[in-house]
């Protein structure tokens, strides 16, 4: 009996369990560990504040998406003892493994910024929308907001789904427009980066969006603390941004057990070879999804492409053959832009988001880096695709590796 242990039953972990149970012989045991039985469709968090999705719709039981022949262990993880090939669980058990797949993601950490989670304004005037609780409470706060200074603020990279803050600021602008109080709400996007969009082509194509909708931008703002008494953000260089309502994207780290196991970097993300996703420290550990330190988006699309690249590699490896695939950091994502439209981005480690069509050259039907109703509908449709096609590990009709077909390269 060979033992495969998967930590985390989110996007990557669930896909892995489904695909590998089909691919691996019966003498392999597969065990999946997660602390609870709530699988959130995280892109849905973006819509809860605006009432266009609900907590009930976004969360389903993890076990509903795990296949027969896989053991689900519901408890937290205390420590990976990689030198012993064992994992200590919070319920006191220890699980040994031959191969370990880590897919425990990234967590927002509002506790790491002074005045954020420990401030008296938390969940009163300061909200995140990267957790179910945060996005639900923010919904109530937006409903009662009658006007004033609204900040949407990014603390530092990396974060899960780097485009979500921009989607939020565009959607919140549209929300107040629809409520007919847009003129009473002063919206500012505050970022530690030097622009709302940072790669040159995306920036040129999309930069006008914020300006056109009278959303102010404050750039190079590295948040030091939130002054709760005066309701202002304070940056390291002493600049201040006052607010009546703050929507913050907190720092993100890996899970606590990653720190405790000595597996992660300073932010708790696990160093891997970015082409094979194999731990740089242990040959029998691979990291899929947001838990690794690969230099691309922490997003479900990346988890999906990474898993598809990884599986043939793993099957080859256990068969004693060289790994055939090399992950290119492929990401693609719909970016909601309000007004019932969305943009589509497609990029990887080496190539920034370009204009063009996707997935078919010249045909599309999706337009890259352009706003369209179809992209918006694509984003909405993806929720069902996620539960019914992606998680069970069925093939989606999009290429795993990024293709340059249909893209307009710059001169």
């Amino acid at each position, binding site marked *: 009996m060979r033992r495969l242990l998967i930590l985390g039953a989110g996007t990557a972990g669930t896909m892995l369990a489904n695909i590998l149970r089909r691919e691996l012989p019966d003498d392999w045991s597969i065990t999946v560990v997660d602390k609870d039985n709530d699988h959130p469709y995280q892109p849905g968090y973006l819509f809860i504040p605006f009432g266009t999705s609900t907590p009930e719709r976004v969360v389903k039981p993890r076990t509903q998406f795990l296949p027969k022949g896989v053991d689900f262990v519901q408890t937290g993880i205390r420590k990976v003892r990689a030198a012993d090939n064992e994992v200590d669980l919070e319920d006191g058990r220890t699980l040994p493994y031959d191969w370990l797949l880590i897919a425990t993601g990234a967590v927002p950490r509002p506790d790491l910024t002074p005045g954020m989670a420990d401030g008296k304004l938390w969940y009163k005037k300061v909200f995140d929308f990267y957790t179910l609780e945060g996005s639900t409470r923010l919904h109530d706060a937006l409903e009662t907001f009658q006007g004033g200074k609204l900040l949407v603020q990014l603390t*530092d*990279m990396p974060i899960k789904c*780097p*485009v979500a803050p*921009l989607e939020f600021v565009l959607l919140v602008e549209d929300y107040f427009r629809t409520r007919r109080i847009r003129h009473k709400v002063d919206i500012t996007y505050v970022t*530690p*980066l*030097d622009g709302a*969009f*940072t*790669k*040159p082509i*995306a920036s040129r194509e*999309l930069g006008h969006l914020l300006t056109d909708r009278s959303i102010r931008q404050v750039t*190079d703002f*590295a948040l*030091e603390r939130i002054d709760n008494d005066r309701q202002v953000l304070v940056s*390291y*260089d002493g600049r201040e941004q006052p607010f009546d309502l703050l929507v913050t994207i907190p*720092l993100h780290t890996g899970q606590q057990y990653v720190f405790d196991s000595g597996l992660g*970097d*300073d*932010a708790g993300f696990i*160093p891997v070879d*970015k082409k094979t996703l194999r731990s740089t420290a242990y040959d029998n550990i691979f990291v899929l999804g947001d838990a690794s*330190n690969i*230099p*691309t*988006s922490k997003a479900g699309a990346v988890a999906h492409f990474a898993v598809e690249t990884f599986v043939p590699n793993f099957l080859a490896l256990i068969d004693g053959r060289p790994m055939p695939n090399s992950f290119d950091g492929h*990401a693609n994502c719909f*970016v909601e832009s309000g007004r019932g439209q969305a943009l589509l*981005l497609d*990029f990887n480690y080496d190539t920034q*988001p370009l204009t063009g069509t996707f997935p078919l050259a010249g045909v599309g039907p999706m337009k890259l880096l352009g706003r369209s109703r179809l992209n918006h509908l694509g984003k909405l449709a993806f929720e069902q695709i996620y539960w019914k096609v992606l998680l069970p590990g069925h093939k989606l009709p999009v290429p795993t590796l990024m293709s340059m077909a249909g893209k307009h390269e710059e001169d």
Partner: protein
Amino acid sequence: MPTNTLNDRTFQVNDEGFFTDRDEWSEELATDLAQLIGIEMDEEHWAPIRFMREDSAKNGPTPTLRRMQTVGGFDIKELYRLYPGKPAKKMAWIAGLPKPVGCV
């Protein structure tokens, strides 16, 4: 890709003037670049630049200010004093590294 020439040395840069090949960088070049934005390089200025190059050589991406603090042990306020206004961007530019970025 545009080519930049400074004091008879040429190097490849992107649209925003950041190096595209870290191996074309040298300390002499960095000193000249710094002068262009009014910074006189001394030991205090060199320490974070050297850390940035070592850290990115090991890990890939250009470190963020927070990483400069947590891993490098630099005080962020001090970095603002040394490189006023936009320390992360200025330091990455002088260090011959990509601008610290998000994904888009």
